[in-house]
């Protein structure tokens, strides 16, 4: 049975500088965000695991036309390969490209208190 990684626990971890994911006990899947069951095999015994806080940029884009609620333009968003899982976040500081090494550098929060991890080049 899943030990139940929740959005709240995942968010608390991001705020503490940790990244939590779910590792499937039945197949090789590890996901970077909470799931009640493995998206690939359906098994419910997902174990909450600490993901590495350093990884490699899998893909990225710089967004110049933001949604309502975000004032800045030209911010970068990346999906980071953390080894067993991938995770999306903002990128601080210098612009990074696919294959570049990055590390967790903090988090950003929207007006409803939902958080996204921030990464920066290392």
């Amino acid at each position, binding site marked *: 049975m899943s030990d139940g990684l929740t959005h709240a626990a995942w968010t608390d971890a991001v705020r503490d500088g940790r990244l939590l994911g779910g590792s499937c006990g039945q197949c090789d899947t590890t*996901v970077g965000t909470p799931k009640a069951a493995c998206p690939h095999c359906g098994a419910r015994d997902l174990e909450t695991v600490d993901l590495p806080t350093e990884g490699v940029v899998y893909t990225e884009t*710089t967004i110049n036309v933001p949604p*309502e609620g975000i004032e800045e333009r030209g911010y970068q*968003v990346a999906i980071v390969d953390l080894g067993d899982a991938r995770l999306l976040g903002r990128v601080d500081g210098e612009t990074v490209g696919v294959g570049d090494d990055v590390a967790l550098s903090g988090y950003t929060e929207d007006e409803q208190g939902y958080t996204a991890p921030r990464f920066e080049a290392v």
Partner: protein
Amino acid sequence: MARAAVVGAGMTKFGVHDTPLQELFGEAAFDALDDAGIGPSDVEALYFGNAMSGQAENETHLGPKVASYVGMAGIPVQRFEDACATSANAFKNAVAAVEAGVHDVVVVGGVERCTPETGKDTDEMTRIFASASHRQYEQPAGLTFPGVFALLTKRHMHEYGTTEEQLAHVAVKNHGNGALNPRAHFGKETTVEEALDGPVVADPFRLMDCCPFSDGASALVVTSEAYADSYDAPVDVAGVGHATDVVPIADKTTPHVTQAARDAAGEAYEQAGTGADEMDFAEVHDCFTGAEILASEALGLVADGEGGPAAEEGRTARDGDVPINPSGGLKAKGHPIGATGAAQIVELVEHLRGEAGERQIPDAERAVAHNLGGDAATTVVSVMEAHR
């Protein structure tokens, strides 16, 4: 054996409309009913698509509202929402219903308004569109929909060397096709130089890589195979596949392969007893130029990694070996979210009847439509054939 037949097809011009949703849908619905030669009292059910009117126009429970406007109140109406794949999913369910004998004659279609006529500006509508990305694990980072497809396309560029110039060729082709389509949002050709000179929205996408915000509606009359021959111009529905993938993007196994499209295409081709090689043309979901390249590969129209070169070499032009988006696609025809999937079927119907005018694919016998929703985590693929 066909699963069903489309016997009437209609749509509004896509573009900017200052009319309410029910009036827009009514125009498309009457167009389809007139094409089929039937009236509202002949219709047994309405399969209706609208994605965002609750957010964009404070308008929900649209089913009976639009049915009332077109003289169909009383019949069952079901509303579908699957982001940009909304009305293809309605179509899938309409086909299943007539095939199963639940109803003999149904109308399926969709309507949406996305332009500032809704009262929503670009930043507000960008936020509403972004509601299709994951609320907890994508939206807080400021991800937008150009951003979603930029992430998929950037990885494809890394894997295969796809270039910004190849993306521009998709835009040029689709604007050229749209210029021949009187119902297209954009009726003007463009050039690779102009496309590459536009402002960046979310790199690698510049303005001309992105479809517009559009208003519009589309509608189809669908009947069972048994009744197809009692109409003047039936077109066969040979197969409809529908699949989903994991959300958010980061949890997908290989985001740029758009696995749901591959699974849906496999299902549709299998039902139709055909394959990608047999398609005379395709209408694909080019919300962004990169999305057309990913779709051309996922549908098997070109080999993996060849989507960019195929666009650049003209293979996907109307006179190429794998014509894609003769309508102009979402890029030029426009993209009123909930109307897009059924409008792709309208385009297939017109070509398969030989009635597509200047943009007609000569002697088209079989074609495929690809309509995706969200980050491609919903995809519906439909194969249609000229009636035999």
